[in-house]
């Protein structure tokens, strides 16, 4: 990837994070989980997925399913920066008068499917990939999973079926931020060696740094020749972009006061590190 393109993506990702942080107040959001996914979504929507913002329901479009639905602030941040979603609507976060809440839903243009129940969307993505095959289409289907989500047996069942059906247009992406709701994945339900597990299920498996646009680009660019489904395990950092909350078990769901949000915005812009004293509410 050339420098100019990379800088553009980095700048886009920063703007997405600027959209997300203010949502972590007055009810809060899954801040840590959202920030780990920002760079992946930024890359996919800017450089990989063929989706025409003017024609979001064009049947030849690529599909992105956010199975790890609680990181939807990252998706909305991307939609705002792409001009698909009016920025003012983010002010309606958790308002019953709009549809901007903790999980994605199809009331928001660009969202392909509602999510929230982990392990649900790999199967839906398979159905869409199968339908595209019936039509002999070229659309690609990307399904983003959390690493904690891989506790759900339905993910592995879907991997078996995706492989059995040799769905070459189907790409799973794991946001491997190394935490599930309340603790490190390896402390509760160890996933490693994850690469070996995915490969043993017959998936074309890659493991990269999910915050590195060059690695993302290099990997996604080589998927086209694959026969059968692929999975990209993206190592990421929970809370990426805010060192004061990064890689912490207790910074998944966050509900801060307005002063703390201000401090976090300063931290995001590398002005000074935030001093957060609020107890984090672990919502689950």
């Amino acid at each position, binding site marked *: 990837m050339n420098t100019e393109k990379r800088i553009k993506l980095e700048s886009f990702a920063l703007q997405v994070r600027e959209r997300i942080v203010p949502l972590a107040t007055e009810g809060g959001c899954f801040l840590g989980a959202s920030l780990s996914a920002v760079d992946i979504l930024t890359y996919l929507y800017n450089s990989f997925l063929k989706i025409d913002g003017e024609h979001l329901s064009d049947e030849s479009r690529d599909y992105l399913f956010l199975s790890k639905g609680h990181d939807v602030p990252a998706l909305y941040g991307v939609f705002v920066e792409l001009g698909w979603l009016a920025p003012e609507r983010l002010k309606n976060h958790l308002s019953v008068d709009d549809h901007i809440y903790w999980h994605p839903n199809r009331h928001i243009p660009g969202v392909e499917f509602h999510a929230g129940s982990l392990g649900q969307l*790999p199967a*839906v993505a*398979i159905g*869409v990939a199968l*339908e595209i095959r019936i039509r002999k289409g070229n659309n690609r289907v990307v399904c983003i999973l959390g690493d904690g989500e891989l506790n759900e047996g*339905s993910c592995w069942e879907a991997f078996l*079926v995706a492989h059995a059906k040799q769905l070459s247009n189907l790409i799973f992406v794991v946001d491997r931020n190394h935490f599930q709701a309340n603790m490190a994945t390896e402390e509760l339900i160890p996933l490693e060696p994850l690469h070996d597990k995915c490969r043993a299920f017959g998936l074309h498996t890659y493991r990269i740094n999910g915050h590195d646009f060059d690695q993302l680009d290099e990997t996604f660019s080589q998927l086209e020749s694959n026969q059968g489904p692929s999975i990209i395990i993206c190592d990421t950092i929970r809370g990426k972009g805010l060192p004061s909350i990064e890689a912490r078990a207790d910074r998944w769901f966050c509900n801060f006061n307005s002063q703390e949000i201000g401090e976090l915005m300063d931290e995001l812009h590398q002005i000074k590190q935030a001093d957060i004293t609020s107890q984090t509410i672990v919502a689950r």
Partner: protein
Amino acid sequence: MTYEQLLQEIAINDQQYVVMTAENRALVRNLPKVLGDRFIDTGITEQTMMGAAAGLALRGRKPIVHALAAFLTMRAFEFTRTSIGIPHFPVKMSSFIPGFLSDGNGPTHQAVEDIAIMRGIPGMEVFAPADEDDLVKMLPAIWETENPSYVRINTTANQYKHSIFELGKAEIISEGKDATILTYGFMFENSYQAMLSLREAGFDVGLVNVRSLHPFDVEMLKALVGKTQLIVAIEDHFLTGGLFSIVAEQLVTNHWSVPVKAIALDARWFRPGRLLDVIEFEGFDVANLVTRISTLIQENQ
């Protein structure tokens, strides 16, 4: 016409249909070669099949899905409720061996709570044909709609020739002052024979083949109020949440008053065995039904 012949005819004529199965091919054995890519066997994966059905529906297809009733309803429940129920996709569920039809399989395979479970999903339609004749008369109308549906597949061969099916309407077989039997699915035939015997014995007994559990034919029920002295709901289903519950809900909601008795499975699974032995053991054979219903009528008078 058989289930498979009907399905083949409809799926060939209309490209929107996709036939899916969780490796339950008993009634769709000949379809893979006819439908090609539109026949999808996901293996023993009821959850993935239902999720994939949602994905196919998202792209405009109408999947007709097949699996054993117990696993289709219970293993995959959240996938059905969340990926099909919430967006209200036209996924058409065909469930095999519901109720007593699981005969010797044992309680793991007994779907005797399926009606209760499926009608709990907003917008889900629930049907139970009396036999193969009823089945092929009902399915075209059920599959035609844009609603999700659940059908207790029943390919029993009976002599009775059913009337044309109208969505949401029951089939009124006969009227009776002493009692009216309401039943559905596999229990239709024995209820029909019991009704004939009771009439011969001098009881004025009517019979309704409910067919459509949800939506339920409320007009049919309204017509019974004041005309019959007793409603007997017969079902190979738990007492909770099935036909007896539906009738009770409707009577209370509408402030109608008719005594209602149930012949159902009261909070227990049935004893597994050969089908006819099971039915007799559980008291749902014709002779037992005649005795039980005549007793209920006498107690009611």
